[in-house]
């Protein structure tokens, strides 16, 4: 029994079916179903995005200068990255250039998001897949202190500190009200950390919770608030005035110092807490190297963080650009977002309708018409689904492919592309980490590798923030304080018709928006986002996406408690509101719900 997918996975749905819904600790709503063989090893995996909002249809007919505000609201977790992609798409379409300072400030904001998002993802969305909180109660505070001090010079590491935390934790647990930790899979055999490592990790869970709120103050300085800072087509809205009348109402020395101090603290936290924790955890999970999925085969990174304003060529981008197919690390293929043959979206297994569903459409010509149809083998009813039928339509996520290939995107993909290109800033830290925990290069293609690549990237991003902050200061010192270009602000200065695209590397992976503008209004708008790539259902050729591929062949210790599934899916940092924002014209009125 079983079928072979073109991208090299053997699927067998004959065994016992396990359903995880809601799959929590992700942004939005996700459902995963797997089939296990008699040894409880996953032989078939189905991931389904279970929400749909429709920002793109809502955007039609609106002012392109407003698009960032709408698309920014696609996601409040990777907040700002959609907005940045949007202003880039509009600028690309209308031929608007931005000043150098705006480029630096945008880069700082985007990198700030990377740092913040990676920290929050690791500690608050992912750590509990590796860390057993209850076990922390049995730790010896002295031994915990010794462990902490052996791996890092972080000052919050005294026996008293851990003792106090343990008392508070014990009191909390004894209250019987475990709050968000209720019904967790505590004591699960797949947890491998000793109690001391668990206690240290819980301490850092709470410290990270305190610290993450400070990281985003950078967004507040340049964008006014976080979540959802403000952006501007043509530059940034925050004017610079360091030495003149009214400087207190602009980006001034005090603001710049605030940003600099947060950057310093971020570097400190990442290097003294986050990275050591990842190394420590990795060393205990060295023999749990499942979850590689597509990462060893096909990965993609658009690239981001342009060194030079308005130059989005691979040369200018500091995050790597390119595609690797079929594990061939010797060849990195270039991406052209405007080429209709490269990026295409399919809907064969998605709840949408195309005239011809065997073919994909380039986003500029994208069609998004909802079509909520369940496959014939579905168990349950339309509004009470027990088990999905992956032979039919089964997800609100579309199916993007690069030249027909399913690819993985995200920090691991970026790391691999950078590594394959021989870029020292990606290769050396990865080699160093592998050496430290004594694992071969192939170990990178795993759930653990994904988690480690994210940590390494976080460190890189924190340092890049400092680089661009210095660049900004140097520019101001040289007398350039321009932050916005208003030459083509007014719609009268625009061509009658225009189209363009913008791309970024969101914390979760490659993100791009495509826009068509007609008579100063948005004519068509399409977004293809990281979780659409990673969480996509099968394409008409039967290729499975990154989520599904990553779950294959993973053994489960206890099918009732799907910790392994959570661990691997979380390593992608899924963002479902992003993945399922796409939308077409009005759906059919099928409401059964009464509304006042």
């Amino acid at each position, binding site marked *: 029994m079983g079928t072979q997918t073109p991208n090299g996975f053997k699927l067998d749905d004959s065994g016992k079916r396990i359903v995880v*819904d809601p*799959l*929590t*600790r992700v*942004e*939005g*709503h996700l459902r995963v179903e797997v089939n296990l063989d008699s040894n409880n090893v996953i032989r078939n995996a189905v991931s389904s995005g*279970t*929400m*749909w*909002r429709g*920002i793109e*249809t*809502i955007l039609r007919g609106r*002012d392109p*200068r407003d698009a960032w*505000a709408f698309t920014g*609201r696609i*996601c*409040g977790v990777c*907040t700002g990255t959609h907005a940045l992609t949007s202003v880039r798409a509009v600028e690309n379409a209308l031929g608007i250039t931005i000043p150098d300072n705006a480029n630096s400030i945008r880069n700082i904001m985007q990198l700030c998001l990377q740092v913040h998002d990676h920290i929050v993802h690791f500690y608050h*969305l992912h750590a509990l897949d590796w860390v057993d909180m209850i076990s922390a109660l049995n730790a010896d505070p002295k031994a915990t202190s010794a462990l902490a001090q052996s791996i890092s010079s972080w000052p919050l590491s005294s026996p008293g500190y851990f003792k106090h935390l343990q008392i*508070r934790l014990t009191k909390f647990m004894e*209250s019987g*009200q475990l*709050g*968000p930790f*209720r*019904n*967790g*899979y505590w004591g699960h055999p797949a947890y491998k950390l000793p109690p001391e490592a668990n206690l240290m990790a819980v301490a850092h869970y709470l410290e990270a919770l305190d610290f993450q*709120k*400070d990281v*985003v*103050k950078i*967004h507040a300085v*340049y*964008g*006014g*608030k*976080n979540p959802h800072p403000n952006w*501007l087509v043509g530059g940034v809205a925050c004017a610079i*005035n360091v030495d*003149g009348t009214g400087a207190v*109402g*602009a980006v001034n020395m005090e603001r710049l110092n605030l940003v600099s101090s947060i950057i310093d603290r971020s570097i400190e936290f990442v290097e003294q807490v986050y990275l050591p924790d990842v190394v420590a955890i990795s060393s205990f999970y060295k023999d749990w190297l499942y979850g590689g999925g597509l990462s060893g085969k096909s990965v993609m990174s658009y690239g981001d963080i342009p060194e030079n304003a308005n130059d989005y060529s691979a040369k200018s981008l500091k995050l790597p650009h390119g595609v690797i197919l079929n594990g061939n690390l010797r060849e990195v293929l270039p991406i052209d977002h405007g080429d209709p043959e490269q990026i295409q979206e399919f809907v064969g297994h998605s709840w949408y309708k195309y005239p011809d569903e065997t073919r994909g459409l380039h986003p500029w010509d994208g069609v998004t018409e*909802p079509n*909520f149809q369940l496959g014939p083998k579905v168990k349950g009813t339309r*509004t009470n*689904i027990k088990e999905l039928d992956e032979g039919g339509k089964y997800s*609100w996520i579309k199916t993007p492919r690069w030249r027909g290939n399913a690819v993985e995107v995200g920090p691991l993909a970026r790391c691999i592309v950078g590594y394959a290109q021989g870029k020292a800033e990606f290769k050396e830290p990865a080699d160093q980490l592998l050496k430290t925990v004594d694992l071969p290069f192939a170990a990178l293609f795993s759930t653990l590798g994904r988690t480690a690549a994210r940590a390494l990237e976080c460190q890189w991003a924190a340092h890049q923030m400092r680089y661009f902050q210095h660049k900004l200061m140097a520019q101001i010192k040289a007398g350039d304080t*321009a932050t916005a270009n208003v030459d083509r*602000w007014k719609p009268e200065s625009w061509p009658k018709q225009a189209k363009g695209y913008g791309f970024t590397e969101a914390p979760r992976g490659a993100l791009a928006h495509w826009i068509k503008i007609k008579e100063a209004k948005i004519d068509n708008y399409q977004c293809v986002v990281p979780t659409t790539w990673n969480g996509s259902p099968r394409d008409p050729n039967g290729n499975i996406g990154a989520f599904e591929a990553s779950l294959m062949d993973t053994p489960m210790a206890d099918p009732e408690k*799907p910790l392994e599934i959570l661990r691997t899916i979380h390593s992608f940092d899924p963002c479902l*509101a992003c993945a399922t924002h796409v939308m077409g014209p009005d*759906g059919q009125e099928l*409401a059964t*719900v009464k*509304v*006042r």
Partner: protein
Amino acid sequence: METFYGVIRRQGITRRSFHKFCSLTAMSLGLSPLAASDIANALETKPRVPVIWMHGLECTCCSESFIRSAHPLVKDVVLSMISLDYDDPIMAAAGHQAEAILEETRTKYKGQYVLAVEGNPPVNEGGMFCIVGGKPFVEKLTAMAEDAMAIIAWGTCASWGCVQAAKPNPTRATPIDKVITNKTIIKVPGCPPIAEVMTALLTFITTFGKLPELDRQGRPKMFYSQRIHDKCYRRPHFDAGQFVEEWDDESARKGYCLYKMGCKGPTTYNACSAVRWNGGVSFPIQSGHGCLGCSEDGFWDKCSVYDRLSAIKQFGVEKNADQVGMAAAGAVGLAIAAHAALTAAKRLSRKPVRPAQEE
């Protein structure tokens, strides 16, 4: 062990007012006065207030904002002040273990838990634009609302509809007060609401033992009774008539008023200009961009972010009040000119008329 009662006693709340809170709660649930003492007993001996935080169609910005709270720190809120028993983006449990918590809470803490809702239910396609546990989100939402002590609508999605409800609202995303019609809902709008406003509201309820006073729109008066404009530090420039005319101009660098750049501060009720964001670091206007009006009903559909006047979309045209008005006045002006010319022409061609005298 830290009970809800212990927490509020520590905050200096007397036993008497605590009991008053319990009886008010009982009343709001339609329970008998006898039940009040039961609730009091339950809260004294048992729990911190259980909070069920549900997510519909949203972007999770409200949760992200919540964890930004500087005072109190969110770890203290979660560990000592409330019992956040269900919140899908952060909870450890998943799948049926997570779903079980909802039923447990409903039966075990009937009438004693707070239901916080982020996002809203779509009601098209039988609610299947947002599926949780194989079922429409709206079903779970209304079920959990039945036995809640209080319901909080976090953010503009739950309060007004927000971005997915912007025209043409393809999924028919619906604010929660349109599907939960038999209960008071505390609306805390904003995209997202300010972190400290969110935690202040929760701690207000646990500290003072009562629900906040609400305005006409159901928003807590303490944070939503004045406009951004009323407490904006750039207000003197507004009164002086000093405006930013275009981005990055001299006025922008001096921090002048953003009125002409489409700032919606004058029509937006929120605490941004007073409480500010991210521990008081800034707020949109301070960082040079006008207010989007994100805590207002239907703000997405009023006009462009950068327009001063609302767009009027009737008969397929989209113009603001001035354009519509000038067009109307202009047309009438032309008609008058034409009429005057005709009148003059007629008078020249004929003798003066005499008014008709009837008798």
